[in-house]
């Protein structure tokens, strides 16, 4: 924050900033999610790198004005690379007293508060449980911050005085006023949002007009009012050149699956049952009917996976999506899929557990269930996405592995990256890896005999589509005779098949990338080994510390079963291995058991991502 400039009429300081975190916070009905999205989309379109974090209550609409009803949307944007949605914010928009109460603790000292004074009346202060007579806007409690008081409600009403709209509609536009103010404050143009308004309310021109008016009124308010005397300039980031779009993890997962279907030439089938935070994948895919996508909203999670098993058996690229409680229900059927050796992708968007737990919060606590949550020896590949856009890559990978290795695959993402968004240098069709599919069409054994469980060099059996003439055969969940697939109770055969199923999964290690440091060298004092959505925080901290001269490196695992072939070797290069996880140490257990490396766990179970500060402190302890 350096440069200072003057503007006509009033003095405005313009500060340059590398990275800024803005937190929009208000009541669930205040439209904060939409406001935040518009703001971050605009920032992204202008070339900032961004990361967003929606953070809302699990009630549909908790009582208005209460602490439980606060809904937040956090945007971290910058002219440098952004890896997380930010530990603390520079600017807090507080639409009411409850919002201030909930979100003040993470506002940086010296940060800005834009407070909607109408949300700090007696009623709101009471609902937010401030003691009788206390109003934080009026006492000394906010002296460490720059407080900008705006009576958003009144100003919106004034702006729309002759719009002919009712109070309720006018009230609903007030988030646009705030957005206008923010656009002024960060010197961003209104175009993107104006276009959005036009499209969204195409059928309700009077509402469109009202929103436009209010948005502009907000901008003008910023421009003209004395209290707004600071503007921030966050230049475009030096991101790799190319076409970008903004994407959330769930959206990326959906189109990753779609892309795999298109590239492999297989029809896409999704059998799913709604559950937070996975439902958006179902929503997204059900829009693609025109691409032949079949989505089946099943009666429960068991029917979700079972219908997918049926569809895979019939030759579709079959998917089922869910979160923890639903994942638990799918385990029996997942055992069947393992035994059948058919392709199937199971997406688990993890959330806080156990049981119903914290449905709208994030966690990484389903890893061991993914690895071991089936009866009997039922190994299958487990992979994990590390950021919103990485959900695309890993969903695509999940399909590729499932098809090419004839196996169910579990893809783990989580609420943080599923709902969070970031700019994505999206690929074009031709850049996507090939996925080879071959259905068997003639008997594969000697003497024209069909051997449904005869394996190729990768231990993979053929995929055989019902409807193929001459290949009629039966498969099932009972143990199978090697090669023929007939039921077999033979002791030795069971051992053979158990080992073969395991070896087939192990063999996948030959078809995935080797592990290598994301940051740092192949030898160092401390390795930070992560998986999943902690990638951003770890990357940020480790890079910072390397810049500061620390002997630290970061390896991030996207393939957990099997592990990359070189992982054991790689780990030997580090004196200490730290594994931060949003669980009680699940990857930790797998790494210790497999490589006998005395890795150290760092665990956080708060339904929230790691902050860079806490990570840094922990790493420092080990150096």
């Amino acid at each position, binding site marked *: 924050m350096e440069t200072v400039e003057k503007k006509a009429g009033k003095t405005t300081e313009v500060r340059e900033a590398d990275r800024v975190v803005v937190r929009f916070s208000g009541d669930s009905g205040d439209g904060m999610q939409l406001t935040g999205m518009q703001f971050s*989309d605009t920032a992204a*379109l*202008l070339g900032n790198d961004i990361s967003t974090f929606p953070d809302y209550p699990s009630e549909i609409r908790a009582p208005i004005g209460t602490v439980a009803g606060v809904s937040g949307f956090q945007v971290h944007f910058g002219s440098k690379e952004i890896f997380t949605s930010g530990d603390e914010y520079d600017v807090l928009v507080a639409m009411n007293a409850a919002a201030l109460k909930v979100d003040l603790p993470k506002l940086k000292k010296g940060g800005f508060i834009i407070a909607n004074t109408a949300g700090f009346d007696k009623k709101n202060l009471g609902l937010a449980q401030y003691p009788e007579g206390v109003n934080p806007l009026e006492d000394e409690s906010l002296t460490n911050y720059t407080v900008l008081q705006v009576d958003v409600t009144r100003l919106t009403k004034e702006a729309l005085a002759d719009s002919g709209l009712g109070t309720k509609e006018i009230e609903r536009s007030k988030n646009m006023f705030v957005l206008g103010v923010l656009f002024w404050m960060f010197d961003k143009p209104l175009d993107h949002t104006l276009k959005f308004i036009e499209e969204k309310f195409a059928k309700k021109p009077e509402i469109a007009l009202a929103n436009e008016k209010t948005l502009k009124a907000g901008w003008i308010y910023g421009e003209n009012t004395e209290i707004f005397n600071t503007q921030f300039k966050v230049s*475009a*980031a030096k*991101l*790799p*050149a*190319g*076409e*970008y*779009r*903004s*994407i959330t993890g769930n959206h990326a997962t959906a*189109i990753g699956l*779609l*892309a795999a279907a*298109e590239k492999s030439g297989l*029809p896409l089938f999704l059998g799913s049952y709604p559950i937070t935070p996975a439902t958006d994948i179902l929503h997204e895919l059900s829009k693609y*009917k*025109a*691409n*032949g996508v*079949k989505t*089946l909203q*099943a*009666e429960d999670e*068991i*029917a979700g996976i*079972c*219908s*997918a*098993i*049926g*569809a*895979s*058996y*019939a*030759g*579709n690229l*079959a998917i089922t999506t869910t979160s923890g409680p639903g994942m638990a229900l799918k385990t029996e*059927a997942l055992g*069947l899929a393992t035994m059948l050796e058919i392709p199937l992708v199971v997406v688990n968007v993890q959330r806080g557990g156990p049981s119903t737990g914290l449905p709208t919060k994030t966690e990484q606590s389903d890893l061991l269930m993914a690895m071991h949550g089936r009866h009997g020896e039922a190994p299958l590949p487990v992979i994990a996405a590390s950021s919103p856009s990485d959900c695309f890559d890993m969903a695509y990978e999940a399909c590729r592995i499932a098809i090419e290795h004839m196996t169910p695959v579990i893809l783990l993402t989580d609420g943080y990256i599923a709902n969070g968004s970031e700019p994505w240098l*999206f*690929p*074009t*069709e031709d850049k996507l890896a090939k996925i080879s599919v071959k259905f068997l069409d003639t008997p594969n054994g000697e003497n024209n005999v069909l051997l449904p469980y005869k394996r190729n060099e990768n231990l993979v059996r053929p995929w055989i589509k*019902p*409807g*193929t*003439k*001459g290949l*009629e*055969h*039966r*498969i*099932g*969940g009972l143990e199978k005779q090697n090669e023929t697939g*007939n*039921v077999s109770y033979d002791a030795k055969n069971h051992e053979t098949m158990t080992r073969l199923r395991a070896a087939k999964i192990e063999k996948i290690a030959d078809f995935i990338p080797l592990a290598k440091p994301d940051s740092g060298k192949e030898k160092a004092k401390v390795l930070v080994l992560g998986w999943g959505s902690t990638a951003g925080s770890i990357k940020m901290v480790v890079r910072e510390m390397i810049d500061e001269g620390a002997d630290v490196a970061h390896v991030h695992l996207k393939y957990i079963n099997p592990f990359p072939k070189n992982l054991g070797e790689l780990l030997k290069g580090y004196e200490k291995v730290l594994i931060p996880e949003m669980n009680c140490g699940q990857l930790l257990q797998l790494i210790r058991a497999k490589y006998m490396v005395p890795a150290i766990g760092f665990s956080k179970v708060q339904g929230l991502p790691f902050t860079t500060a806490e990570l840094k402190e922990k790493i420092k302890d080990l150096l």
Partner: protein
Amino acid sequence: METATENKLSPKDYASEMEVKWCPGCGDYSILKQVQTVFPDLGVPKENFAFISGIGCSSRFTYYMDTYGMHSIHGRAAAIASGVKAANPDLSVWIVSGDGDALSIGGNHFIHLMRKNFDVNYLVFNNQIYSLTKGQYSPTSERGKVTKSSPYGSIEEPFNPSELALGAKASFVARTLDRDPKHMQAVLKRAHAHKGTSFVEVYQNCPVFNDTAFFAFSDKETKKEEAILVEHGKPLIFGNNEEKGIKFEGLNPVIVTIKESGISPNDLWIHDEKDKTKANILSRFFDTTQHDDEFPRPFGIIYANERPIYDENLVAQIDTVKLKKGKTSLNKILSGEKTWSIN
């Protein structure tokens, strides 16, 4: 569904090489035989048949048919079958299940399949017992039944499978019997012909754990009194000398003696497959306790009334949207609506 163009197959073309492993005398043998008998006549190429079964003695059926087949897990056959049919509506999908598999653990998929009305056939071999697990009462076992898990008698009211199916909006409900091969064949053909989910309850004798449960409906001495064959458009007549009929008094069915009372067959209840009220009353002959008379058990097509089919509509919706919106290219999917470039 294509029709077979090649030479007609014979029943034994539908027998797999697997040795049939049911107990001697098991009613399942007859069902297998009848299915294999009617299959060559259905006009479906052999490779287009797919059997999906759950777990139970009954569910072993799949292994014995030389068609495509999956012997899946307990209670889930209906859910798996709906995926098979959704993915490939050209297949003729047959679900085989037991009273435990379909109506106990599989109950949810059972009712939802009926509701959604996929064009599949659902055969439930009802032996009123869990056989594979060696003899516990099932949800169709009669109240008071003494089994390994109910040594002092079951205290549960059984389901009436056809009543339940109707309640779940089944579009086709039929009942037949292992010991009546011709009847079963006719019912199987009708089930196949029906567009939508065809639910066929097959009374099946388990000589080991629940012997003779249904003999009253097939034994020469009793069957004419205890069973009634219903046929669309025909009056409800039964009895050793076809002397009994069923007619309505208001909403209540009553048993009448035809000749004695001067009642002619035309005054009787004429079976109408499409009448759900009649189907409902018919299915509840089961609960004889609710009537003064002992009603015979109905066999045949109790209800058949076509309505929209899930898998057809799934395809139709895709076609409509395709026509209207056109396919989105993969590149367009990847880029989405809003992009920006950085140089």
